[in-house]
């Protein structure tokens, strides 16, 4: 967990409003766990708060992130040029665990929930696991990373309007993907709820919560535990998560 000004080494437009940025810096070497995130400070004091973005891939001292332009912060990210720097705090949070006993993993990602699954797919594949991947988009034009994922396993695409792959939501492709031992998912909350219902409890869910500090101090990002423990009734998405066991927290 360090703070460093990473240097932009490339910026690429993957789909409408979707960009991949590569950044370089020493702290990247400690970004080992998929599902962790970096907290980016853009533009001095405006905007005031950092922006959480998932680690999408790491190679030595190079970090890849994929982001969708939503508001002020991500717009400023999109304006960065090669050689510019980005103040990054990370890696933050607890990422996806790779469980030795599970052989086949089903990865289910929707929209900008997809990027962290890439680094996960890569590590699972490198560990010799079988990987299946469901990627959900609104429509064909918005698709990204589908080819890159196919290096690691079979890819099932869903689009809401049926313009590519299965028509519908990611959950509509779970049956098609067949058997799996463990699942990993990241995407908007309604999707996570649907996946949890459809895919059972042996799995991991990555949550997006609005954050303040990103380090566990402000309690902006808490989620209730489904079964409160004696001393603990909630968890912090930024510090205890963003990845939780399926069924662990109230979505």
């Amino acid at each position, binding site marked *: *967990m360090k*703070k460093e000004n990473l240097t932009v080494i490339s910026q690429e437009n993957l789909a409408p409003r979707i960009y991949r940025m590569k950044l370089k810096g020493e702290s990247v070497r400690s970004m080992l766990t998929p599902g962790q995130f970096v907290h980016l*400070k853009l533009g001095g*004091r*405006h*905007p*005031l*708060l*950092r922006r959480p973005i998932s680690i999408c891939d790491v190679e030595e001292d190079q970090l890849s992130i994929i982001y969708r332009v939503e508001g002020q912060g991500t717009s400023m990210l999109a304006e960065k040029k090669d050689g510019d720097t980005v103040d990054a*705090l990370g890696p933050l949070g607890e990422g996806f665990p790779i469980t030795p006993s599970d052989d086949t993993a089903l990865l289910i990602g929707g929209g900008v929930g997809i990027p962290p699954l890439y680094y996960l797919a890569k590590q699972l594949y490198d560990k010799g696991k079988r990987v299946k991947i469901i990627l959900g988009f609104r429509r064909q034009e918005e698709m990204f990373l589908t080819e890159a994922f196919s290096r690691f396993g079979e890819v099932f695409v869903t689009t809401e309007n049926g313009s590519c792959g299965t028509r519908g939501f990611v959950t509509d492709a779970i049956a098609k993907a067949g058997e799996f031992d463990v699942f990993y998912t990241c995407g908007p909350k309604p999707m996570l709820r649907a996946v949890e219902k459809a895919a059972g409890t042996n799995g991991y869910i990555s949550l997006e*919560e*609005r*954050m*303040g*500090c*990103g*380090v*566990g*101090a*402000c*309690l*902006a*990002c*808490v*989620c*209730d535990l489904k079964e409160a423990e004696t*001393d603990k*009734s*909630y968890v912090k998405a930024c*510090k205890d998560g963003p990845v939780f066991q399926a069924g662990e927290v109230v979505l």
Partner: protein
Amino acid sequence: MNRLNVELPGLKMKNPVMPASGCFGFGQEYAEFYDLSVLGAVAVKAATPETRRGNDTPRVAETESGMLNAIGLQNPGIDHILAHELPWLEKYDVPLLANIAGKTKEDYVLVAERISDATNVHALELNISCPNVKEEGLQFGSDPQMAAELTRAVKAVSSLPVYVKLSPNVTDIAGVAAAVEEAGADGLSMINTLMGMKIDIRTGNPILANKTGGLSGPAVKPVAIRMIYEVSQRVSIPIIGMGGIYSAEDIIEFFMAGASAVAVGTANFSDPFACPDLIKDLDRLLEEMEVSHISELTGRSWNKWEPNLSSSR
């Protein structure tokens, strides 16, 4: 030469900078970034008698040069705080200002009494101004009589100095300040957050689950400075100033308005190293300004005579 050490009732501080209550948890998280002993003091998260779940999420929203929060005083309750949080902080050489909240006078008295026993708690901060908790707290902050009564009740059960944290959401903050001074308060903390709201225009709903929240950050600094300027001329107890501090220049401005120490809240979220960086920058800036001791600046905007030589240094 030490230009930075200040002494306020109960708080012997290496420097005038402390993290603000609610913006630093109980220190654990920031201890992963730096040694907490560099801080002047630590104002810990509000304690209530019972465990509090707080409000639903989203609990924060960003605004222009500010942020809204509606955490809702989530905390593990006084028992857990005494058993786990405060003892953990004992390894640091830093005095604690214990922030206290509650629904009733009895709540405050109970927490005050119990938390005063913690060896590293050197002073109490009565949060009579948290705007995010329904039907409680707030009325203490907006009514001088009730604020005074609460202060008196807490003073009666604790031998620690008591700071009252004032709400800016009032017509006459100096009136509340004067009333709590009269009731025995040893110091003031100001300002807490301004009540605000933000609406997501795509949905038409307030962004915060709690709808309204407390505005903090640089946006509120002019309001904080004005209130400290006003109150410091009316009372003679010291003021811990806060509201939008992001630079050493800001700290000087708070001192000149009338503060004797400062607290830093939102800036910690923008940068986890905010407090230690501010302490270093402040020292450098005072040297540049040829100020021999920070406490000489207290009230400089209205107090044009010579620095008060009896002030602590």
